[in-house]
């Protein structure tokens, strides 16, 4: 059989991605669809996982009867909405600082990245439940200003959310290592000739920041937003994680119900990320792409 060059190339391409494709079918596509199917059934674990069709009953129960599911879901989304902006701003700020010529730059970068390496879910949980996290936020500098007092004074009712955040601020900051790194890589990728050219044209520093740094960085901001959202939703401290596991593997082993809960959770995450990606067309600037 004679193949054209294009066909041969296509075949090579398929060959290289075939392990991934098999894995995708076996460990992602099939469980994903199965899960959807199971969510409309009840599963009898004792009788070899036999399924019994119940229609939308699992979903109806999740939203109308279960008093834990909806509040936990709302909490997961709310936590994400608070955590992600904090992580993004903090990571950007830290990346700017450690991008300077400074003494001990390697040390600082090493420290900021440390949590990525040692942040085993359970260890972090132990550390923070034992008070290390709480103590850290009350450490010397934080005590200089009475943070909660100030917040209550200015924010009134919204203070509760802010106070919640402050209580676990170290935890939130601890999960910004990857984001700092990505920002740093992005900052280093901006060619200095852009700045020089703009300066020759008389741009002020503010203009350099808003018109060069931020647009050039915006693709990475998008990557970081998505990464942070995914990270926040699959984090060890996410209440949804334990809830779904408890549905499935404790008490009555309600696998069908857990699958339904997992699917609702997925749809929520998917919609949020979809909204981010769609909106990104308005605020992400891709250099080098011309139309």
């Amino acid at each position, binding site marked *: 059989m004679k193949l054209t060059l294009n066909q041969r190339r296509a075949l090579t391409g*398929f060959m290289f*991605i075939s392990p991934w494709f098999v894995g995708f079918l076996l460990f992602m596509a099939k469980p*994903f669809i199965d899960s959807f199917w199971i969510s409309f059934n009840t599963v009898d674990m004792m009788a070899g996982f036999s399924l019994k069709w119940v229609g939308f009953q699992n979903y109806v129960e999740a939203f109308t009867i279960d008093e834990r599911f909806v509040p936990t879901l709302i909490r997961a989304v709310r936590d994400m909405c608070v955590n992600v902006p904090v992580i993004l701003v903090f990571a950007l700020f830290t990346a700017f600082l450690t991008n300077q010529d400074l003494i001990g730059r390697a040390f600082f*970068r090493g420290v900021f990245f440390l949590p990525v390496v040692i942040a085993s879910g359970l260890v972090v949980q132990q550390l923070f439940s034992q008070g290390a996290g709480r103590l*850290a936020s009350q450490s010397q500098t934080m005590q200089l200003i009475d943070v909660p007092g100030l917040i209550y004074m200015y924010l009134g009712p919204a203070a509760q959310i802010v106070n919640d955040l402050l209580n676990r601020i170290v935890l939130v900051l601890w999960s910004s290592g990857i984001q700092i790194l990505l920002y740093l890589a992005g900052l280093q990728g901006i060619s200095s000739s852009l700045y020089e050219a703009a300066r020759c044209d008389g741009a002020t520093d503010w203009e350099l920041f808003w018109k060069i740094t931020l647009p050039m960085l915006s693709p990475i901001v998008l990557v970081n937003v998505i990464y942070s959202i995914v990270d926040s939703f699959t984090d060890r401290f996410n209440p949804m994680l334990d809830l779904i596991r408890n549905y499935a593997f404790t008490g009555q082993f309600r696998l069908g119900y857990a699958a339904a809960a997992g699917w609702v959770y997925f749809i929520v995450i998917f919609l949020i990320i979809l909204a981010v990606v769609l909106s990104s067309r308005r605020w992400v600037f891709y250099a080098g792409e011309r139309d």
Partner: protein
Amino acid sequence: MAKVLDNLRARTIDAPWFLIYRRRTENLFFQVLMYLILFNIAFTFLYPVLYMVSTAFMTIEDFVDPAVYWIPRTLNWDNFHLAFLGMNYKIALKNSLIIALVAAVGQLVSCAMAGYGFGRIRFPGREFLFLLVIFTFIVPPQTIIVPLFILYRKLGWIDTYYPFTVPTFFAHGLRGPLFVIIFRQFFRRQPWELEDAARVDGCGALRTFFRIMLPLSKPALVVTFLFSLVWHWNDFYEPMMYLMKPQNFTVPLRLSILQSSLNEVTGGQAGEFFNEPLIMAACQLVVVPPLILYLFFQRHFVESIERTGLVD
């Protein structure tokens, strides 16, 4: 104060200096401020770690004594000894190492191949399949945990290493899609001349990949290997699902049953020993292996992401 700041601003710059690409400020005030902020953040980051190290060496008397702050009176190694016994550390370490190493090797090979295919070779449906890779990344494990559990149960994979290692050889497993994306981005940036030269010399696609492109991709390989190793080591959710018998537990899982297994070792006396210094010592046993890895490869961890061109 406001006036002073206004004056400073008027005299020196019209934007916070650090926002601009790599320019060292000449202003001493801002330099001092920057180091203050950096040290503060670094301290906040290190605080839990320092707390863990210092507490682990304390006796319980030291721990409850308010006069003992940071530095224990005597270096007390008993906590480590007890944690070592209670976690059955030798066996747990073996389990963790096997899972993490095999999984890292698996993802290294399979994700590099997939990344090469997606980044380098044109074939129909490529963009769509790559969208599926990205889609895979955002599906939370909770959504597919039930069918996967049933699948592994039917395959008889519960209480074995297979649920963690087999998917990695198919470019899946823990954050597999992320590594595929990293490799794709990396290979896309490489010059075409090398492959063209290889093809002219009659080198087949597989040989070109293994002999020329793979050795070139050291930064991406290092990132994938280190991250995969560390993430598999630290993983808790999946081992908890698929491992039932304590002798198969990984190190982090062992931490979660420390109290009850200490009870066995000490003959029901664990209550006496089970306290925060002991927990901190146990935490340290979990953290130390990846930490050693990090200290040795710190530069690679931090720099290789920049070199993989992930962000282009």
